[in-house]
């Protein structure tokens, strides 16, 4: 990535960062940039205040994407085991930011952003289904892709590619007891 593009990214986000440092003070969030993406790492407590500020004051009206990553065994990783990312977009200026928040074992949980964006509903349910991260305040946190009887979290790094045989041990429903 050339130097000029990096400066362009700076200019593009200048007013957003000015607002953020006005509300939260300087140097609270650690940021990293690569290939035009700007990522903000937030502690769990500040997630909802930050996203609310971004939505209400900086015009990031749309939550484009929400997903989780398991960093168990990632080379050189020193932060939390799981990270959840939020991609928010300002539809007027086409500005885009990635917010990352760390979640740790055991009993990983973070606040839900459902009150801010209804679109987070299924995306949070998928992260719960695949990684076992619970979202506090989500109105309907159930498994979405896997069946309810399933006990494991398939996208965790310690879950084997071929599974552990859960599929073959589902309770068998007969016509009598269905």
């Amino acid at each position, binding site marked *: 990535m050339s130097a000029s593009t990096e400066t362009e990214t700076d200019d593009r986000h200048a007013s957003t960062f000015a607002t953020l440092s006005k509300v939260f003070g300087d140097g609270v969030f650690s940021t990293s940039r*690569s*290939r035009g993406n700007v990522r903000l790492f937030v502690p769990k407590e500040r997630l909802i205040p930050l996203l609310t500020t971004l939505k209400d004051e900086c015009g990031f009206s749309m939550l484009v994407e929400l997903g989780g990553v398991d960093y168990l065994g990632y080379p050189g990783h020193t932060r939390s085991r799981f990270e959840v990312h939020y991609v928010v977009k300002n539809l007027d200026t086409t500005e885009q930011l990635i917010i990352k928040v760390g979640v740790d074992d055991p009993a990983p949980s973070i606040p839900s952003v459902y009150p801010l964006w*209804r679109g987070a509903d299924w995306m949070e349910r998928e992260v719960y289904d695949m990684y076992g991260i619970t979202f506090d305040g989500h109105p309907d946190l159930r498994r979405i892709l896997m069946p309810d009887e399933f006990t494991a979290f398939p996208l965790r790094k310690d879950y084997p590619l071929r599974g552990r045989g859960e599929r073959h041990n589902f309770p068998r429903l007969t016509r009598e007891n269905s």
Partner: protein
Amino acid sequence: MLDDPELEAESKPYLWTLNFGPQHPATHTTLRLVLDLDGERIVRATPHIGYLHSGFEKLGEHLNFNQYVTVVDRKNYISPPMNEVAWHNAVEKLLDIELTKRCQYIRVIIGELARISDHLLCTGAAALDLGAFTAFLFAFNQRELIYDVYEEMSGYRFHPGYTRVGGLMYDFNDKVIGRIRKFLDAMPRVLSDMEKLLFRNKIFLDRMRGVGTLSREDAINFSASGPIARASGVTYDLRKDEPYLAYNDFDFIVPYATEGDCYARFQVRMEEMVQSISIVKQAIENLPSGPYNVPIAEKFPLPDKGTSYNSMEGLIQHFELIMPNRGLESPKDEIYAAIESPNGELGYYLVTDGSKTAWRTRTRPPSYIHFQVFPHIIKDHLLADIVAVLGSLNIIAAELDR
């Protein structure tokens, strides 16, 4: 009438529960809806997904960047090349590869052909579900011509697997261009036939207009994108607003509507096909000459067969990428990159750890996001409106259940 479907369902114990799907002819794939009905009026709809869950995202952590393209194809099997372009767009952004001009144009062409083919199926199937069988046959017949293009360019008819890191599997030859021209010649006639059949058809209009209305605020709040958001007045299009590939070189407009109902979504799709035809025409007329892969000195692309058989550099490069203990090494980084697919924003959140495979390939699938809008916009409509709304949302089950 209560606003909250949960409360209303609680307060009316006489409601009838109906399972719609998974094998209903109008659900096209395995979609299951559990409906609470008050007479014929829908009080609450609960979509159940996950019937196909095939672990595509887990596979992405075990296949390398070139192998995974065959899996990506199967996510939205109505427009596979668009998925390939999206996947390799993310990989190339991560590896910081600048594609050649010819490759960019070819990817635009196959992407737009995929968009037309997806919209043809969607509009045709919407017409079919509402009883207009002829329009569906016209649309589906036209898709065959697009399959002919795929077959000629890659050898595969349904899942081409045509893109590679840093380029393409093969170059376009004259036969491919001939087939694309043949398709372009036939297409406007089909569109006008479909318009004549449908836009003055009273049954069709009555069942589409004012059904499944999604307001602009809701569209943004529900993270909707693509034709569904544009039919509600959100004029965002990644091709215009964050241009990727060579979209800056082409002259086209972004069609939108403000009604937000099924008919608006149908019209937006029809108009997008016209725009896509114009883009493909411009790209074919101005197709740049030159290499279609980045130079092999950059260590990313698989050399074409001629180069690997006839030159030592090509042979070495081919070995370096194909041998199991060698291969393409990624940086330790992560990225979100998205393109405008037929259904909306198709993005990849890609994390790499320096090895040959990705650490995490999170897909941002448009259908998944759009299906959660369904219970909201179907409320208080009649049972028969479900097929109209499902058809206009264009839900692809394989994209729901990655």
